[in-house]
C-alpha cells in the first residue's frame, strides 16, 4: 500500500528535499559535469592555456595500448576478486548457517573487516607481505618462494587481490547468510528425506535458491572492484610494478593527478561513469524482475 504524506504548503517538501539534493548536486552532478567538460579540453604542461578539442582525448585514449592494458588488468583483477570473495563468503556462510556453538561470535568476527577502510586494509596486507620485513613474506622465503611484489607483477596482483577479497568477503557473507536464512528449513529437510546428501543438497537446492542473492552480489562486487579498491591499490602497489596492477580507476588518478593529463584522465572517468551506469541499469532491471526460479 502506498503511503502519502500531505503537505499544506509548497515550501516544506522542497525544504526537506534540499539537503539530499544539495549533496547529490555538489558531490555528484557537478563533478560529473566538470569531468565531461574537461574531457573535451587539453591543457599544456604548465596549466597556462586550455584548448577545446572535442573528442581528441577519447581518440588518443582509445589509440593508446596502455589503456587497453589497464582494461585487461581490471578484467583480471575484478574476475579474481569477485570469484574468490563470492566463493569464500558462500563457503563461510554455509558453515555459519549450520547451528554450531559460538556461531554468533563467529559471525560477528567475520563482519569486522568490512569496517576497515580500504587504504588501511591495504597497509595491513602490505606489512604482512613486505618483501624484507613482512611476516608472511619471510615465511614464503623460507619455503623457497622468491616473494617480491615490488618487482614481480603476479605477486603484486596476488597481494592486491588478497587484500580486496579479504575486505569484501564480510559484505558478501552477510548477504549470503541472509539469503540462506530465507530458504525454508523444511525444503532442505525434504531434500534430505528425498535421499540427497549434504553436498548434493547444496548444489541442487541451496545454490539455485540463492541465485538472486548471488546475482545481486555479483553486480555489487564488480562495482566494488572497479572503484572502491582504489585505496588498496594506492596503498599497496601504486599501480606497479610496471603498471601490472594499474586498474582503470587507478589510471584515472595516476594520469590526472600524477601525470597532469587532466583531459585524458577526465575522458577515462567519463568512460568509467558510463560503465557504472550500465552496470547499475543491468542490476535494477534484473533485481526488479528478480532472477526467477
Amino acid at each position, binding site marked *: 500500500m502506498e503511503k502519502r504524506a500531505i503537505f499544506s504548503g509548497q515550501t516544506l517538501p522542497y525544504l526537506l528535499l534540499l539537503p539530499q539534493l544539495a549533496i547529490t548536486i555538489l558531490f555528484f552532478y557537478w563533478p560529473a559535469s566538470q569531468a565531461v567538460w574537461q574531457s573535451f579540453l587539453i591543457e599544456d604542461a604548465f596549466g597556462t592555456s586550455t584548448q577545446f578539442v572535442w573528442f581528441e582525448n577519447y581518440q588518443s585514449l582509445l589509440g593508446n595500448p596502455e589503456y587497453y592494458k589497464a582494461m585487461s588488468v581490471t578484467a583480471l583483477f575484478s574476475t579474481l576478486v569477485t570469484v574468490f570473495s563470492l566463493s569464500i563468503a558462500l563457503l563461510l556462510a554455509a558453515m555459519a548457517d549450520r547451528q554450531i556453538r559460538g556461531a554468533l561470535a563467529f559471525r560477528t568476527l567475520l563482519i569486522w573487516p568490512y569496517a576497515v577502510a580500504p587504504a588501511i586494509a591495504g597497509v595491513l596486507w602490505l606489512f604482512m607481505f613486505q618483501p624484507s620485513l613482512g611476516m608472511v613474506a619471510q615465511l614464503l622465503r623460507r619455503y623457497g618462494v622468491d616473494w617480491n611484489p615490488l618487482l614481480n607483477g603476479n605477486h603484486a596482483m596476488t597481494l592486491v587481490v588478497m587484500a580486496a577479497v579479504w575486505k569484501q568477503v564480510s559484505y558478501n557473507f552477510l548477504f549470503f547468510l541472509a539469503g540462506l536464512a530465507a530458504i*525454508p528449513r*523444511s*525444503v532442505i*529437510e*525434504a*531434500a*534430505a*528425506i*528425498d*535421499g*540427497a*546428501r549434504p553436498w*548434493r543438497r547444496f548444489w*541442487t*537446492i541451496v545454490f*539455485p*535458491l540463492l*541465485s538472486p542473492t548471488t546475482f545481486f552480489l555479483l553486480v555489487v562486487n564488480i562495482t566494488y572492484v572497479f572503484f572502491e579498491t582504489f585505496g588498496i591499490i594506492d596503498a599497496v602497489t601504486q599501480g606497479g610494478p610496471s603498471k601490472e596492477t594499474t586498474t582503470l580507476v587507478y589510471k584515472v588518478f595516476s594520469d590526472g593527478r600524477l601525470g597532469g593529463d587532466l583531459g585524458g584522465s577526465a575522458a577515462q572517468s567519463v568512460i568509467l561513469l558510463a560503465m557504472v551506469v550500465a552496470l547499475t541499469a543491468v542490476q535494477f532491471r534484473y533485481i526488479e524482475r528478480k532472477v526467477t*526460479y
Partner: protein
Amino acid sequence: MASVTLDTVRKVYLGGVEAVKGASLSIPDGSFTVLLGPSGCGKSTLLRMIAGLETVTSGTIRIGDRVVNDIEPSERDIAMVFQNYALYPHMSVYDNMAYGLRNRGMAKDEIERRVAEASRMLAIEEFLTRKPRALSGGQRQRVAMGRAVVRDPQVFLFDEPLSNLDAKLRVQMRLEIRRLHQRLKATSVFVTHDQVEAMTLADTVVVMSKGEIQQVGSPTDVYRKPTTTFVASFIGSPAMNLMPGRVVGRGMVEIANAGTLAFDAGQFMVGEGDQVEVGVRPEDWALFTSGEGGLAFRREFVEELGATRLVHGSAGAAPIVVAIPSGANDPETRDARLVAKAQAVHLFSSATGRTLRPA
C-alpha cells in the same frame, strides 16, 4: 512396507526442555496411525525423530527390524509430507517428484513411469511442467503427496499436511489421503491437532499431551473409553463435561448441590466415599422438566448449530453443556432435570486423572 517401533523414546532439547518423555509405541505394518494432541505436546517432535530430522536423546526407534537412531534421513527409506508443502520452488512439478528418484540413481524410464502413475492417481498430470508457485494450495499439497508416493517408501510421514488448506479443501484432501492409503496400504504416521482428521483417518489414534502418550486406541476407543481426563476433554466437540463427585453407593455418584447420577458399577473399580471426576458427553445427556433422580440443571444460554443445539448451564458448581439433536425434546425451562444413561457415565480418579476402568 514396514512397521515402526518406538521404545521409551525421549527428546530433550538444548536448554533442558523435555519435548518427549519416554514414548513407547508400536505402529504395525500397513496401519494408519495418527498422533493427536494440542500444539506443544511433542507429536511433531516424535514424527521428526522417526524421520531423522531430530536426534533421539534416549530410547530406540526401529523401522522394520532396523534400529534407525543413527541413520541419516536419506537412508531411512521414508517419505514425508510437510505442513508448508516444502516443494522445491525452482523445480517443475515433474522435477519435484523425480528428485528423490534421481538421487537414488533410478533409470530414467522408470522415473517417468512412476511420476506418470502418481500424477494420474493424484490428478496433477496437467501441472507437470509448472513451477510450484503457479499452483494453488491444494494442488501443491497433491504434488507433495505425489513426491512421497513415487518413492514407494517403507513409511509415509505426514506433518499436519492439511492445516494450511481452507476448510472445504481440507475435507476433500482428507478423503483423498484415506483413499490413497486404502490403495497403497503403506504404513503411515500422521500428525495433527485436529481431532476430526484424527478420527476420520486413523486406524489407531495416539493422543499426546505434554510430551507423554495419553492413550493409544481405535477412534471409537478413544471416544468411548478415554483413559484420562485429558483424552476425555480433548476428544469430542464440544468437550466432555467433567465435574467432581463422590461415590455414594453401588453404582451411584453424587455431584455436590446438584443430585446423583447412576453409573455402570461393573465397569469401574471404586469404593463408597471415593472422590472421583465424573465425565458425561454433551450428547449423552437428556433434559426433562420434572421427575426424580438426575441433576438439577440451571439453563443459561443456547447455541443453535442447525443439526444440534447446545444448551449451556450448570449443575451445582459445575458448568454443563448439553447437546440436543434438532427435533429431540428440549423443555426450554430455566430449571430442569439432567439425566444420563448409566453406560454413558465415565469415572476418573480425582488424584491422577486416570480412568477407574480396570485395565
